[in-house]
């Protein structure tokens, strides 16, 4: 039975590029914040504005790049981003995921992801989902900047619905559970406390030089 997850479904934005790196998702000057929020206005800052942004700056005074899809009002409420291969490569900065989340993106769809970025998504309740090249191409080809289209995601059955198409996607059960139930990963790992302690004790006997 089709079980659409409303949270992860909605209208989408296409960024038809490969190797979108985390320096583009959130440029370095915004990493000086010691918080996890407030990055949304600076998502893709270098592409979204025509001037150089600084931290704590009012965005209303800035020169907007009207040609960049993220500034198109039709897509202001989009919560899905579709992009090409190796999305999120480069720096490990989790600020990239915080910026996407802050902007309102809940699902990132790409042909492939860089490892660290992929992990960071699920730790912040974002779904990162891989489709085949032919499937991504179909979405890119039909994308139209003059009208927002929707993608529906059935997280439980791992099916993406786009127009008349149904695309199956891979997702491990634990990540799915995290997204659906909002699991506390540290809490879950701390349930292994006895095992960690016992490992550590044996390990220290074998490798005493690693302990001061």
């Amino acid at each position, binding site marked *: 039975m089709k079980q659409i997850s409303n949270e992860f479904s909605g209208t989408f934005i296409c960024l*038809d*590029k*490969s*190797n979108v*790196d985390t*320096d*583009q998702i959130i*440029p*370095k*000057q915004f*990493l*000086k*914040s*010691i918080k*996890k929020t407030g990055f949304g206005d600076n998502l893709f800052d*270098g592409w979204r504005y025509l001037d*150089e942004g600084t*931290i*704590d700056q009012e965005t209303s005074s800035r020169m907007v790049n009207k040609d960049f899809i993220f500034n198109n009002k039709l897509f202001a409420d989009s919560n899905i981003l579709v992009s*090409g*291969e*190796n999305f999120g*490569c*480069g*720096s*490990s*900065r*989790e600020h990239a*995921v915080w910026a996407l989340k802050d902007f309102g993106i809940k699902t990132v769809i790409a042909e*492939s*992801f*860089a*490892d*660290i970025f992929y*992990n*960071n998504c699920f*730790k*912040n309740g974002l779904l990162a989902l891989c489709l085949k090249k032919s499937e991504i191409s179909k979405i890119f080809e039909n994308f139209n900047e003059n009208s927002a289209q929707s993608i529906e995601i059935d997280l439980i059955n791992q099916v993406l619905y786009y127009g008349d198409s149904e695309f199956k996607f891979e997702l*491990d*059960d*634990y*990540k799915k*559970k995290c997204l659906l139930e909002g699991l506390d*990963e*540290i809490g879950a*790992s*701390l349930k*292994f406390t006895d*095992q*960690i302690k016992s*490992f*550590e004790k044996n*390990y220290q006997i*074998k*490798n*005493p*030089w*690693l*302990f*001061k």
Partner: protein
Amino acid sequence: MSSKTLYDKLWDAHHVAKRDDGSSLIYIDRHLIHEVTSPQAFDGLRERKIEPWRVDSIIATPDHNVPTENRAKGLKGISDSTSKLQVLTLEENVKKYDLNFFSLGDERQGIVHVIGPEQGLTLPGMTVVCGDSHTSTHGAFGALAMGIGTSEVEHVLATQCLIAYKQKNMRINIEGDLLERVSAKDVTMFIIGQIGTAGGTGFNIEYAGSTIENLSMEGRMTLCNMSIEAGARSGMVAPDQTTFDYIKGKPFAPSGDQFDKALDTWISLKSDPGAVFDNEFSFSSEQILPQVTWGTSPEMVSSIDEKVPEPRDFKNKENYEDALNYMGLKPGTKLTDISLDQIFIGSCTNSRIEDLRIAAEILKGNKLAKNIKRALVVPGSGLVKKQAEEEGLHEIFIDAGFSWRDAGCSMCLGMNPDQLNQEERCASTSNRNFEGRQGYKGRTHLVSPAMAAAAAIEGRFIDVREI
């Protein structure tokens, strides 16, 4: 017992528990911390009211955000108030949890990936993590070293473990002597050009072969450092006598009987003869000429005797057009015809003593070309700086017209005041040529320290072997 790769051995030795989803809890030996990716993790600990699991595994230092001038002023030397707050927050967290710390005024302060090895805090067989993707550097010692996100920093602080899926095994073999003045940087850039920036995604890369065995530890660190630019979270070289000689006598390394005991373990850290790799590449050292990037991804790289390629020759033509447009380059331009505005020698890739020595050797008795507006040398640590000054290298750089700076990440990512101006073109020994990486609309060409020094003299790229 079946044959294992080095990665398999390190994985098994740190495997604490298998989780229901197929991932594992992996025990972490060393946790490096800097000011940019840790504040939110420490906040998380406080929200949970828990303490770091094992304080002696942690070493902290400020590096990303720190100015490379006025170091004697300490925190007061940081003019940007948000940068200062971030460094101050690190100091507060260090104090609260009584962590090992190299402060701004300490000569041991520097880029985390330089100071770990330099202090003997990185050892063979270890698992090493840091909230920085270039943690792969430490794999040079036969360690399993991975960059992690801030949530994972918090997880490691809380549990001493990382949740990880086992990666596949890749081996890259390179045989033969490197050509004159071709270095580890050229090797890693060549590899990325061959396998692409996603070529290593999902893999641990083991580097092997006589070329790798003949590299110094500095060279191996440069090589492993850029594994992440090939998509691999970790890269490694099996430890050998070069490794053990480097470690011996380092401040935090084991000594006396402990060293001998450790050595017994370390010598077993290599892939078994019959070990199976999921993917394997082999190259000959003679294929590798000095490398220069011309685009906005490290895979957009060519040998110095080549030209800027035509976008239509690639499958994602638009990406290449965008890149050349950003870089202000026309297809067909000879790399040796690209003139430069700035030179940057530094970063966790190339700021170690060997890097400074080769750059100084080439610069000796020469001056910056007239069109070079600024040239920076930023040693990787206070101790690298000190060593270079003892060898008189600083005088060579200063005489040539370089600015001789204090340790930090500096213009590799330009979080501090060291940045390119708009459309300025830089020959940089760093690791990423992404748009805006070194400054808003700045243009980065990645090269080796030798090639950066040669470019400084000529004002344009030149094959360093012609100097």
